[in-house]
């Protein structure tokens, strides 16, 4: 190193790290409860029938999706932003009182929104759109949080020392812009209290769009909330953390360019694949289908770029559980971005849509790619932020294998469940009558729902191991010197 390293200020990064762990556990715990509820309906009233309203599958389900997407993942994105941003722009948060204030405000306001979301969802206050369930007062809070983050990004970029923006920064900027556009348009709603002159619930609103148009905007948002919440920022992470941890340069700059602009251009078209065989115009369904297949190219571009970054250094995968987390994440990214396009092919979609196969797809993406990458990123950050080595390497390894087993049980059981379900729905007997009643297609899934619940539980156990390892790292691991932190993270036994 030619220059003395800057003293970066990780205060806000630390706060977000903490929240990532907590909300990760909350989100996945709720998911596990839901999985057991589907396998054994009695679990719905496990806390007594008096409070069934709040432990019921239907109320908990949005809490699960929102806390994993907007709780765990988003906190992870921000934890890494307040770490990576400073380092690749070569500027410390401590240099600007204003940016520091913004970052703290960002965190505080986000906490307020989180509490409001949990409370309202449990009470059933919802606009009814998946992943856009929040009523208008919370939407305003979300927009404020987002604007503050944007100011923080561009503020930090504004005072940077490094002239050229590193690849990860492109992806963080795209995350910010993409979600901003999608969220605003999809959540256009009219508060009925004000429009009707003060009648009814003050927080209630009605969508600006109706029927087919509403569906179109919703899935343009819904799919791309996945794009700009689960893909783009996670790619930002791997582009920073894998080269750092492995000490290898990114394999190809040109490939990263191609993959980035390709992803930006193609991703938004793919939302239409949620609406195949619905009442949206046919050409749009076809576009959604075709562009979903094209999407394999930029997705695999990034993934291959990452895997090839390990060229000649594959022994690190065996040696370091941290590298293992990241390589598994990239592999699951490739797997998931191949599976998605296959499901978007019209004839496959006819079978897969509305079934558990889709649930399986979402979860191999989120558990295998997103969560693994976020955990790896936080593992990499922890020694540098807390100036301590990672408490236990063997615990990390244990976590890795337990969670990998969990993911595999999850997606394999959901594949079988989904395809079984789809085949049974469409089966006719030799007289052209339906071969099965609907309930037959439900009861047959019981073993797969049980396997899924076991898989999910294993993953949750891994989350607790992660939390414990992080906690011990923070509080009682060996202190490390700056010189130990050049590439690979120092780890205890």
């Amino acid at each position, binding site marked *: 190193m030619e220059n003395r390293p800057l003293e970066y200020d990780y205060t806000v990064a630390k706060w977000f790290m903490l929240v990532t762990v907590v909300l990760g556990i909350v989100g996945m715990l709720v998911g596990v409860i839901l999985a057991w*509820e589907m396998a054994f*309906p009695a679990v719905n009233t496990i806390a007594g*029938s008096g409070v*069934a*309203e709040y432990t*019921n599958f*239907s*109320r908990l*389900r949005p809490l699960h999706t929102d806390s994993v997407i907007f709780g765990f993942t988003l906190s992870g994105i921000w934890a890494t932003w307040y770490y990576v941003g400073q380092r690749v722009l070569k500027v410390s948060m401590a240099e600007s009182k204003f940016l520091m204030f913004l970052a703290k405000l960002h965190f505080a306001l986000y906490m307020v929104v989180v509490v409001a979301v949990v409370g309202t969802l449990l009470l*059933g*206050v*919802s*606009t*009814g759109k998946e992943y856009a369930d929040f009523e208008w007062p919370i939407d305003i809070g979300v927009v404020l949080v987002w604007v503050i983050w944007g100011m923080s990004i*561009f503020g930090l*970029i*504004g005072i940077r020392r490094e*002239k*050229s*923006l590193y690849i990860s920064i*492109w992806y963080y*900027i*795209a995350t910010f*812009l*993409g979600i901003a*556009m999608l969220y605003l348009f999809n959540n256009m709603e009219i508060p*009925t*209290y004000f*429009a*009707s002159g003060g009648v*009814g*619930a003050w927080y*209630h609103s*009605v969508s600006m769009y*109706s*029927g087919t148009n*509403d*569906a*179109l905007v919703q899935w*343009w948002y819904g799919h791309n909330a996945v794009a700009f919440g689960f893909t783009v920022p996670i790619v930002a992470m791997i582009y920073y953390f894998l080269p750092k941890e492995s000490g290898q340069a990114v394999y190809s700059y040109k490939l990263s360019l191609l993959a980035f*602009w390709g992803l*930006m*251009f193609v991703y*938004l*078209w793919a939302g*239409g694949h949620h609406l195949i*065989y619905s009442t*949206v*115009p046919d050409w749009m369904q076809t576009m959604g289908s075709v*562009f979903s297949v094209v999407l394999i190219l930029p997705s695999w571009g990034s993934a291959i770029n990452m895997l090839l970054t390990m060229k000649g250094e594959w022994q690190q995968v065996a040696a370091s559980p941290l590298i293992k987390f990241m390589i598994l994440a990239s592999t699951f990214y490739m797997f998931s971005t191949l599976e998605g396009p296959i499901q978007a092919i019209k004839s496959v979609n*006819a079978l897969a849509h*509305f*079934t558990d196969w889709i649930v399986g797809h979402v979860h191999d993406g989120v558990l295998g790619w997103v969560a693994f990458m976020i955990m790896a990123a936080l593992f990499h950050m922890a020694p540098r932020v807390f100036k301590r080595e990672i408490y236990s390497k063997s615990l990390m390894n244990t976590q890795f294998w337990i969670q990998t087993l969990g993911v595999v049980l999850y997606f394999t059981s959901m594949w079988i469940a989904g395809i079984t*379900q789809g085949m049974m*729905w*469409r089966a006719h007997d030799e007289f052209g009558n*339906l071969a099965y009643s*609907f*309930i037959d297609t*439900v009861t047959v899934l019981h073993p797969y729902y049980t396997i899924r619940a076991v898989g999910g539980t294993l993953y949750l156990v891994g989350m607790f191991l992660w939390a414990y390892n992080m906690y011990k790292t923070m509080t009682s691991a060996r202190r490390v010197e700056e010189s130990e932190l050049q590439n690979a993270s120092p780890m205890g036994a």
Partner: protein
Amino acid sequence: MFHWLEKNPFFFAVAVFLTIAFAGLIEILPNFAQASQPVVGTKPYTTLELAGRHIYIKNNCMGCHSQLVRPFKSETDRYGHYSLSGEYAYDRPFLWGSKRTGPDLMRVGNYRTTDWHENHMKDPAGVVPGSIMPAYNWMFKNTADLDTAYAEQVTVNKVFATPYNTEIPMADGSKATVALADSVEGARAAALEEAKLVAADMKDQDVKDAVAAGQVPEIVALIAYLNSLK
């Protein structure tokens, strides 16, 4: 070009935004130009039905049930005619759902009765052995929010010209009119009249007593909504 963009964050952000916004413009605008035209026989919701729709949303029924019949023989055999865009003209938000843990409900009003729904919501597995749907007992106790439903009716009537108090052509050639009350009191009274018709087909004595006393339990509104799905 790209090297230049990477040194100019402002232009970089503009370039990214244009690239991602492009697809949305091409896909979404043409459909908005020809906004959903209702098909013959599609009526806006009454106060009670809309209150029921809010309960459907409140309890996230669309998490497990779709409201979209796809144009396949297996689906039209099971659920009825496939969905048409115009049938959703007054649905804000749309409730197609994304998962069928339970069956589609788009036309459930054609083949299930008030009595069936009542029993099913109390004890799903008792009506459909093997069902994994939980019971929704609290709907028999909670009171439906008619005021908010009325506020929404006024809003959609005012802002989106949803045709209340207007003659709507029906499939059999007749005309139907869905009334929008002048005041929230009027809406409550009309909803109660409608609720009485539903409660007459129900067995739960507490629900019957509540309706007789001028209350509308959530279950009554929900069933009114489910019965309207045809």
